[in-house]
């Protein structure tokens, strides 16, 4: 799936990175803990979170996330969106809450991360 398809599935608003929506997304990782994202998420994953602080952007940058989806209609402050823009990290905001958001992505073909806790 491409980011532009995900926008349709999630009825999402694009906060930044309009020019990066052709990016291919294979896996998703839904979490509100930075260290878990860094421990378990693959590179080139879509991060799904309800946190909107700058640490999410740093974490996304470190793990080369293809983008970040904020659930529950949340959106980070302007300067945080700017930071993501500078680092080429597309940000989306969906009105759906975490469970529904992940469920919709899953039934539309997005996989969970390979690198799970049992490995």
């Amino acid at each position, binding site marked *: 799936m491409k980011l532009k398809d995900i926008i349709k599935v999630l009825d999402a608003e694009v906060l930044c990175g309009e020019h990066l929506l052709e990016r291919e997304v294979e896996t998703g990782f839904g979490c509100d803990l930075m*260290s878990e994202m*860094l*421990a378990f998420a693959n590179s080139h994953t879509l991060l799904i*979170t309800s946190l909107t602080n700058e640490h999410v*952007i740093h974490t996304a940058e*470190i793990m080369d996330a293809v983008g970040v989806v904020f659930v529950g209609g949340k959106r980070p402050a302007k300067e945080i969106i700017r930071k993501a823009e500078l680092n080429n990290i597309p940000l989306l905001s969906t009105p759906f809450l975490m469970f529904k958001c992940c469920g919709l992505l899953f039934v539309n073909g997005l996989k969970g991360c390979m690198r799970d806790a049992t490995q």
Partner: protein
Amino acid sequence: MYEGRYSMNRPDKESESKPQLKLEFKIGEKDFSVAGDAASKVKKTLQQLGLKPEAVRNIAIIVYEAVMNVIIHANYGQLKVIIVPDKVVVLTEDTGMGIPDIELAMKEGYSTAPLEIREMGFGAGMGLPNIKQCSHKLNIKSQVGVGTVLEAIVYLSSKN
């Protein structure tokens, strides 16, 4: 805002083959943005040097988690990242409360982070285990009431 100081030492022909690059950052009290800034700067530098993506990512994770620990659990300190041809050394030194039981601190899920820190998305108790996972060698020395020194080494073989 702290900028990483950047120094390239090439004193003579002998060391020409062993360029050493050192990045240094001060970690101020409660300066939450320094972890992300340092990780980002280190990542970009390593990418420019042509390190493999896997090594770059591992080192960025080590930097981020180690610096975050200083900010969250200690008072202040510094970060040094030393890049030599065959390895990268990440070193944090802090002044702070120290770690009474390092073995316990290394356990996945163990965290003493307070509620307001957890609300920011930290305190999973995964930072030190992440650092261990991402490095080939990890040394932690700590003295209660004084501070902690963490040294993580990533070797750069042909495969990373």
